[in-house]
């Protein structure tokens, strides 16, 4: 009768061993924690990086604030591509990063997007909600999607703009708050929410038309990367950082709707031409 017990025990031990072996054997890919806004762009860029260096990668995407919390609690990532400079700075203060690895790799831009009504602009958005006309009551009740201002840098910037425009008190109760900018974009794109403030890069990447928000209404979305102190692959992480900051990659990043740290004006001009 002990046989049963023994068998069960063996099975458990065996499966535990299996899971243990899995960790030990697998050649560790470079783990990149990336903010949702940049994840699709990164996925476009990584094949080039892999070709140049032979380094395999794993992309973990999430909201910047959430990824920051995970890193603080010991998540085994190698490099963190945040959507702001606040969290990288905090990680630096907490001595969780390799010193001097904090670099700006892109500057994010906000855009207003509506799948139903692409002509909506930042200016007439205000008129929708402030118009005293009775006909527009229905319009006034339109929901607006933004990312969570507390955890998502794009959400924080969106909130700043809404406050500046005097729309915040009106809209406060009509907002659909996405967990991250990826979710917000998905909500607007699927038309679950009629209007949303999303990352301009998301529109560019999906060949959709939206309208840029004036850069003056929000603090620049200074997207920084950091190499984490606990990484076993500092070299590979540094290579990725160099790759992202290289002139060629920066040009590509600019094409996807970001401003780049060095040439702040490139994409602004091209966008103006289009409009």
């Amino acid at each position, binding site marked *: *009768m*002990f046989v*049963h*017990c023994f068998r*069960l025990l063996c*099975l*458990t031990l065996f*499966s*535990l061993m*299996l*899971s243990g072996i*899995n*960790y030990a054997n*697998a050649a560790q890919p470079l*783990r990149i924690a990336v903010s*949702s806004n940049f*994840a*699709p762009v990164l996925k476009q860029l990584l094949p080039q990086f892999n070709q140049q260096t032979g380094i395999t990668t*794993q992309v*973990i*995407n*999430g909201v910047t604030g959430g990824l920051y919390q*995970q890193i*603080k*609690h*010991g*998540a*085994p*990532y190698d490099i963190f591509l945040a959507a702001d400079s606040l969290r990288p700075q905090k990680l630096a203060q907490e001595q969780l990063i390799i010193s001097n690895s904090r670099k700006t790799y892109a500057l994010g831009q906000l855009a207003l997007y509506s799948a139903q009504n692409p002509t909506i602009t930042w200016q007439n958005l205000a008129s929708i909600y402030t118009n005293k006309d009775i006909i527009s009551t229905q319009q006034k009740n339109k929901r607006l999607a933004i990312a969570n201002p507390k955890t998502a840098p794009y959400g924080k910037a969106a909130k700043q703009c809404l406050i500046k425009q005097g729309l915040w008190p009106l809209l406060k109760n009509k907002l659909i708050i996405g967990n*991250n900018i*990826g*979710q917000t*974009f*998905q909500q607007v*794109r*699927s038309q679950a929410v009629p209007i949303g403030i999303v990352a301009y890069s998301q529109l560019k990447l999906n060949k959709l038309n939206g309208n840029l928000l004036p850069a003056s209404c929000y603090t620049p979305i200074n997207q920084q990367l950091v190499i984490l102190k606990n990484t076993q692959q500092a070299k590979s992480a540094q290579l990725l950082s160099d790759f992202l900051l290289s002139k060629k990659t920066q040009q590509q990043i600019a094409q996807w709707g970001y401003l780049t740290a060095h040439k702040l004006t490139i994409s602004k001009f091209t966008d103006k031409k289009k409009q």
Partner: protein
Amino acid sequence: MIDADLIALFTTLKMAAISTIILLLLGTPLAWWLANMQSRIKVIFEAIIALPIILPPTVLGFYLLIAFAPQSNLGQLWLQLTGSPLAFSFSGIVIGSVLYSLPFVVQPLQRAFEQLENHYLEAATMLGAKPLDRFFSIVLPMTKASFITAASLGFAHTVGEFGIVLMIGGNIPGQTRVLSIAIFDHVEAFEYAQAQTLSLSLLIASFVLLTLVYLSNYKKVNHQKVSR
């Protein structure tokens, strides 16, 4: 199904299988102990075990996140014992799953043990059977159906886990990216086709599993009715 999804499927099955084995090893003595407990304190233990049923997974996830962090005592101990951190690891989500699915294993077993008629065990004791022998030759065969129910529910509930893994998993492919998380990712990335493939397969698999569980219960009940 794309490769990444197959990895997620494999991770999910591995997590659920290991959790179920641990759950049975842990849940059986626990259920036995509760079933035979005379004291009124029993209700407190029953309440504690039932907590994951009503608590939002975020509550459990939050406490586990703090407990697993490398700064915490448990996190440190684990790091020293195994050399790898507990937070955001496969072992971490297995521990989370075990706690989360515990009531689904303990409760059916406890009910079964409570209904067990004592005279069989007494007779076996008189004949000189040791406790472990009594368990494997009498208790186990008589409560087999409940064990199957408990194991299937534990397994299924672990496969269906989302909130805790989201909080303590970190979405790492091959380690903590399980099916539910992969689906969430696909939906957020607007990859509806992939989300649909995974969701539909999960829906069908869960339905089949639950039907089998209820089928085994049905047979048991009918069998009892006939024998009476």
